């Protein structure tokens, strides 16, 4: 008999309500909840196929420890004992700051809370960060600057359909997050003005009134100059309920994100209204991880600083995310490989697990109980529909034991008990202990409160040149095709084709240059040059080139060391002007 367990989708930050359908201990299907305020009977293709990755055969099912070049299976006691000894040894020789701890938006609030306690109280290190350092940290820092700690419920997906105007930054924000895209379509049908800002789109879908062909980092300057924007459209962005939709994973740098959000806030007609801000993410608990303190406290190193060549960090405890796919520079990956000790706790076999010294298997969201905070600021309960696979165990059991191996203690026990601790300790999360969390719609964080003196930030000028091409380097470190949950679902694996390491160029431009398919081009910027195969693409605008940021060596050749975002203290690659010629 099929069992239907009501729970939350864990594919992205929207937080759709769904039923996971199981039979004989196997996931067999899903359906959306029709009464959940976000899903309302609808899912995206990831949600509809979520049951497939619950059946993955590439799961970690036993603790592993390094033995020579390979890994061998071991028991939990041995793995935790060894981890404790290694950590104690490093602390004894180099001090607690030789250890770094990486939490994750792929962990529940309860687990992230324990990870942050492990770092701060058990190990005593300030080197605590999230795997989102090179992505969403920029946008979240901007929200922190505007709304203070405990950002609050800054957006509402259902309310977006009532918006008079919506500014969508990057068409992925509409297409890839269907609960949000759906409300954008509904708003359009009700007469709203929908604006798309996307420098990599040659044309916009019919429901966009305006296309602003400027990259996100330069958008505030374009808006201020009212470039390419019909009169009156921008005024609507000041009306109550106006929406700003963007993918937090790729909005950076922080100053641009701040200027963009500020643009809407400053235009609002009434001081009591705030715009509807939807900072979307390709991970399910971005807001929760950030709010629960998965970021460096004052004096602590962030992920990039921990992996810098001169860093004193010798050991890294990495939770739930394949770190190796999120590093923007080859040197960081090299440093990760050379650390004295890497503990990796996660769900799937991957490259980070391969270089770890100890690997601990964790259950999936559908195999354990925990809360997730959506992009709206909605805390929802993810309920277990399946038993943990193999010998995998939740962090609420594992971390107290690890703490014990280090001669300290950590609260553990059932998720509800940890929620009580969170309710007392984390500002804004008081509701996490109440019955609302267990209701279908979850508990919304408090409404956001604007800082008394919202900070200003300088804006980057729009890049223009009559004789050069604009090279866009979109942040693809967090792209869907690099997400393991996609790879473990046969239908989705086919949907999200891995990109080829090539430079995308407008089809007509390629013809004008007489480039043959696959022929190499030489592009040159002020920072470097690169020879790379071209890929003609009708969807790319004229005189624009697109190079995905996860092709690290290619990007570093033409963009050098990139820029350091002073707020997140991490690298990003701004768009550049380049010349193009045949190689």
């Amino acid at each position, binding site marked *: 008999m099929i069992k239907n367990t009501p729970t939350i989708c864990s594919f992205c930050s929207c937080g759709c309500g769904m039923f996971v*359908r199981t039979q004989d201990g196997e996931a067999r299907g899903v*359906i*959306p909840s029709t009464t959940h305020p976000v899903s309302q*009977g609808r899912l995206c293709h990831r949600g509809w196929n979520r*049951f497939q990755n619950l059946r993955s*055969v590439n799961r970690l099912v036993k603790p592993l420890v390094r033995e020579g070049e390979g890994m061998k299976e071991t028991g939990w006691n041995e793995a935790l004992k060894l981890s404790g000894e290694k950590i104690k040894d490093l602390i004894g020789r180099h001090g607690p700051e030789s250890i770094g701890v990486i939490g994750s938006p792929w962990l529940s609030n309860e687990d992230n809370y324990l990870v942050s306690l492990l770092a701060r109280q058990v190990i005593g290190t300030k080197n605590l960060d999230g795997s989102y350092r090179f992505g969403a940290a920029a946008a979240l820092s901007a929200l922190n600057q505007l709304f203070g700690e405990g950002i609050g419920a800054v957006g509402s997906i259902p309310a977006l359909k009532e918006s008079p105007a919506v500014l969508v930054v990057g068409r992925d924000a509409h297409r890839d997050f269907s609960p949000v895209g759906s409300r954008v379509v*509904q708003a359009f049908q009700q007469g709203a003005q929908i604006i798309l800002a996307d420098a990599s789109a040659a044309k916009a879908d019919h429901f966009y009134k305006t296309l602003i062909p400027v990259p996100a980092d330069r958008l505030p300057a374009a808006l201020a100059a009212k470039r390419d924007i019909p009169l009156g459209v921008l005024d609507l962005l000041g009306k109550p309920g106006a929406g700003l939709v963007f993918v937090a994973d790729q909005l950076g740098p922080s100053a641009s994100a701040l200027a963009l959000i500020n643009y809407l806030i400053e235009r609002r007609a009434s001081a009591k209204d705030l715009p509807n801000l939807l900072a979307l993410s390709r991970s399910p608990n971005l807001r929760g991880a950030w709010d629960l303190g998965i970021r460096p406290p004052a004096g602590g190193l962030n992920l990039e600083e921990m992996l810098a060549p001169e860093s004193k960090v010798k050991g890294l405890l990495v939770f739930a995310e394949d770190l190796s796919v999120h590093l923007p520079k080859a040197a960081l990956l090299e440093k990760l490989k050379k650390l004295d000790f890497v503990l990796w706790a996660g769900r799937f076999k991957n490259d980070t697990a391969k270089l770890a010294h100890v690997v601990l298997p964790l259950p999936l969201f559908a195999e354990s109980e925990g809360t997730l905070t959506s992009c709206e600021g909605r805390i929802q309960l993810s309920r277990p529909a399946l038993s943990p696979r193999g010998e995998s165990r939740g962090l609420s059991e594992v971390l107290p034991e690890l703490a014990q191996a280090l001669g300290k203690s950590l609260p553990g026990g059932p998720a509800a008990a940890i929620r009580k601790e969170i309710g007392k300790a984390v500002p804004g999360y008081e509701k996490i202990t109440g019955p609302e969390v267990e209701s*279908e719609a979850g508990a919304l964080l408090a409404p956001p409160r604007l800082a008394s003196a919202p900070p200003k930030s300088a804006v980057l000028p729009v890049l223009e040149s009559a004789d050069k091409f604009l090279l866009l380097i979109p942040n693809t470190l967090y792209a869907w095709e690099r997400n393991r949950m996609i790879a473990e679902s046969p239908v989705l694996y086919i949907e999200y084709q891995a990109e080829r390491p090539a430079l995308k160029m407008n089809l007509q431009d390629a013809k004008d240059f007489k480039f043959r398919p696959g022929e190499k081009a030489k592009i040159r910027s002020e920072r470097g040059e690169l020879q790379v195969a071209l890929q003609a693409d009708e969807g790319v605008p004229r005189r624009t080139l697109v190079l995905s940021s996860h092709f690290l060596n290619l990007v570093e050749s033409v963009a050098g060391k990139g820029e350091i975002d002073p707020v997140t203290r991490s690298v990003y690659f701004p768009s550049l002007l380049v010349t193009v010629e045949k190689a």
Partner: protein
Amino acid sequence: MDRYILRKEDVNRWVEALARTQEVLAPTRVEKEIFFAPTQMAVDLNLLSGTATLPYLPAKDLVLPHSENLFHFTRKGGDYELTVPEEKKTAVVLGIRSCDTSGIYWLDKFYQENFSDCYYWRRRNNLILVTMACNQPVKNCFCVCCEGGPFLDSERDEFDIQLVDLQDSYLVECKSSKGKALIEANPKLFAKADPSAVKTREALEEKSRNSFQPDPTSYMSTAIRRITSNAVTPETWTELGEKCFDCGGCAFVCPCCSCFGVGYLNEGEKGCHYRFWDSCDYSGFTREVSGHNPRGEKGERFKRRFFHKLSYQYLKRDGRIGCVGCGRCITACPGEVGMPTVVERLRK
């Protein structure tokens, strides 16, 4: 065709009798959603009859589940041992609505032409369909435009039993031998229907047919003509496709959609072969190994879907369209391009 009267207070006694020898699946709520779930008695009569309250998933899920294991394999020396999961015994589906019964009838045709799909048929042959005619359609219903309801034609062979809600009792229309066996489980509960009950049935059907809300689906024939004569412009398909999110939801909730994909789950020396719902919305549905995709654009895929549903299937194959008018695609579509919206757009 035999017609009986079953008093509403006797329904649970009937279910109790049926449940002694087979599984009885009836509409049941889990949280606020409705699923067909096994029941011993105490059927919720409000879900069973009255206003059309459709489960989110059509009963297609009972014959073609979202995913199913086809066979397990284990390496034995140089060979493999194969085992096929056992299928459960007979089940009565009580209260399946007309549209969903039509959908299963439609799938029956698909899964027997050219190739008889044993996995489909071993489930299908075990099901006995007790259909509930709809006296009162709801907002999204348009079965009246698609030969999917609100009542099923008594002379057609889609159902085993059709129930019609006569307020205090049900008119029981029984055609098949499987249906007759259900009545014989407790024949004392069934009285022969008199001609006045048949007259009431006709009046109820007429009333139900007239109570559909004014709806663009009345343009179904125009849409079929335009799509078949290639009168729909590529720009229209592009515009419709731009609203599609490629979620696959419309295909998954469609009682008529029959596409599936297959995969292997292999762990060391053993594993299983399974199949799962697939959707023509997906770009990977027809992409070739070379990377070329004959339906790479969303508008192209949208055209294929509706050409298949409204033209190819209708004209060339079955003499009826690939839609039963249940309205589930309206509920499931994030882009607001369910069947009625598309039909209205196509007629212009």
